[in-house]
Each structure stands twice: as C-alpha cells, then as structure tokens.
C-alpha cells in the first residue's frame, strides 16, 4: 500500500517539475473549448444547447491524448525496468501511476468543467450532469488508456496507435455520456446512465491495471 502512495507522490512531483507534457493536452482542450464562442459567434441559445456535449467530448479526448506519455519517460530512462525488478509488486506501482495520471489530467478537467459550462450558458442540470459524467468517465478513460500505453511501449508509434487500440473501449463510455448530458439538459432523470458509467468504472478499476501490468511486462521483455 505504501508503495502506491509513494508512486503517486513521485509522479506528481515529476509532473509539477515538468508541467509541459501533461498540461499540453489539457491546455489544448481548454483553449479549444474557450475559443469556441469565437468560432461559433456568441449567440447564447445555440451555445447553451451544444456546449455541454462539446465540453464532454473535448475533456474526454484530453485524457486520452496525454496517456501515451504515461510510461514513456520511465521506459526511456530505465526506471520502468527497476519497477519490474523491485520487490514491490508492479501492480501496485501501476495503480499509483494511474492515480497520479488521473489527478493531473481527469480530475483537473472535471473540476474546471463547471466553469466552462457557466461560460457557455449551460443550464444547472446540464453542468451537474457534465461534472458527474466526467467524474465517472475520466478515471475509466485513464484506466483503459493505460492498457494501450503499456502495450505500445517501445514501439515508436505513440499516440495514434494507442488511440486506435483504445477507441473501441472508449466509444461506449463516450456515447453513454453524451446521452446522459442530453437527458440532463432536457431536465430528465439520468440515473440509468450514471449506473452504467459507474458499472464500467467498477470493472475497470479491478481489471484494467492487471492488463496494464501484463502489458508492461510483455513490452519490456523484448
């Protein structure tokens, strides 16, 4: 357990010493979303109707596109092989890395989303649902994404390959969330969507890190 905490601490430290990598996609999506009214023209009705969906899609993709750097540096400087060889189980280290990754990616964007929502005249129900959906979906995305990151380590193919590998698992979450936000904006009950998203999250928490761990071992055994 201690090693999970230590890994989270280590990774956060590294992120903050070198914010470039991790904030890049975040900054990107924030910029895209905020420059939106510029592109659309600031008519409140239209904005209110579509922004929740846009925020959701952009936020989700952000977590996808920062994920390929998750193990890359550790792989290149040789600390990843130290993690494999160490006495502490690799699985716990993986959990730690995933948590750290989510904290700086998914959580930040989740916390910023109500602000963006308000900027774009999304109604309260819509904002609430967006936050809830992101809260449930971003960890899932990070968990699933880490599998792709592990499997493509050392292949020199980076982001695209991961995106292709992960997309099938992402798609249901993406669609479920859009439906949920639509439902919420319309003022209806979206408990069903929440339950579905939560179920996917629950199963990912248990099994995705296992697959990631195996993926790392496979990628490094070469």
């Amino acid at each position: 357990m201690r090693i999970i905490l230590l890994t989270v601490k280590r990774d956060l430290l590294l992120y903050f010493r070198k914010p470039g990598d991790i904030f890049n996609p975040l900054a990107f999506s924030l910029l895209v979303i905020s420059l939106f009214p510029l592109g659309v023209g600031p008519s409140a009705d239209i904005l209110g109707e579509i922004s929740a969906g846009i925020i959701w899609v952009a936020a989700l993709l952000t977590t996808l596109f920062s994920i390929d750097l998750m193990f890359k540096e550790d792989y290149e400087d040789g600390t990843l092989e130290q993690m494999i060889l160490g006495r502490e189980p690799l699985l716990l280290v993986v959990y730690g890395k995933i948590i750290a990754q989510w904290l700086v990616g998914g959580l930040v964007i989740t916390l910023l989303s109500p602000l963006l929502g308000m900027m774009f005249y999304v109604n309260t129900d819509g904002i609430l649902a967006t936050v809830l959906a992101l809260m449930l979906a971003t960890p899932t995305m990070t968990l699933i994404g880490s599998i792709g990151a592990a499997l493509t380590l050392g292949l020199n193919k980076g982001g695209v390959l991961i995106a292709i590998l992960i997309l099938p698992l992402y798609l249901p979450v993406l669609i479920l969330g859009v439906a949920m936000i639509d439902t919420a904006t319309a003022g209806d009950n979206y408990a069903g969507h929440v339950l579905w998203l939560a179920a996917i999250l629950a199963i990912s928490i248990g099994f995705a890190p296992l697959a990631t761990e195996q993926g790392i071992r496979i990628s490094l055994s070469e």
Partner: protein
Amino acid sequence: MLQVNNLSCERANRELFRNLSFEVSRGVALRIHGLNGSGKTTLLRILAGLYQEFEGDVDWGEEHYPLYIGHRRGLKALMSARENLFWSAAINGQKTKLSEVDEALRQVSMGGYVDIACGSMSEGQCGRVSLARLFLLHNPVWILDEPFNAIDSTGVQCLVERINKHLSSGGILVLSSHVEVPLTNLQELELRY
C-alpha cells in the same frame, strides 16, 4: 547459486550464443566480455529476467530480486540524487532513512550533491549516483552492465572495494566490462560469434 544450462539466444536474425552453460557460486564474480554487439547486455538482461526470447534454462536456486544496473541508469533527470536513491530503495521494498541515503551518496563522493537534480550532473556523476545503490540496498545478487563506464579511476577503486566486500559476504555478481577488473574471486566468460 546461479546455474545456466544450454542457453541459446538469437537476435535480429543473428545467433548471439548457443548452448551456453556455466555456473556462479556465492562469493564469486563472473565477468562477461566480448566484442561490441556480442551479446553481453542481452545475456545480463536474460539473467535478470528482463529479456525473454531465449531458449534454455536459468536457475538461481532460490527466490531472489537481483539488483540490475544497465546502460540506462534508471535515474530521473528531474529528481535529486537523494530522491532518486530513496525511490530505488522504496521500490525494492526497503524502508530507508534519509541519513542512510546520504551516507551511500557520500561513499561514492557525491555527498555534496544530494539535492542536485540528476539532469544537471556530469556523465560520471550520474553514474556514481546510480552506483550508490550498491551501498544502500541489500540484494544478494548484483547484475551490472559496464558499471565503470564514464567513472574516473578513484571511483573505480572505490567500487572494486565495495564489490570485494559484497563477495566476501557471500554475494553473487555478474558484470560485463571491456576492461579488466581486479577482483578477488573472478571468473571470466568471453562471448564470441
């Protein structure tokens, strides 16, 4: 005790070694040498369990976690020497006090650099920080890939002493090196193709 039987490995369509068999007992160091590209690193990684495309049989006798230091030093450029070593100990399941870490760094004459990020150190200083692990961790098996690269002669001497102590306390060492090393209990293995 390490026992290797009939080890064969092929890489990039070239046979590196075939039916290699040897054994290393406790207290003995094995130095692997050979031309560039002859497969030293590959062999060490096989022994450490990091490379798996081989045929044959590697038997360490008992459960163990080797201390492996390869061409890639396993240091984070953005973390200080102290942080790096502390993390090394943690991942190795070892609870360490900061004072022990500092002591290990002092042993490799890096006592003045505990708080400096490894990214702003010279080549050899990085090597020293990485090798400070030998003074900090308690693993019985060491696997070192060209540990003397970029290290100056006083550094080499200090390392040799540490290794001899490790051997005399019953440790095992497998290392690769292009230069000869004055160790007490040395066995040699040349790879040729």
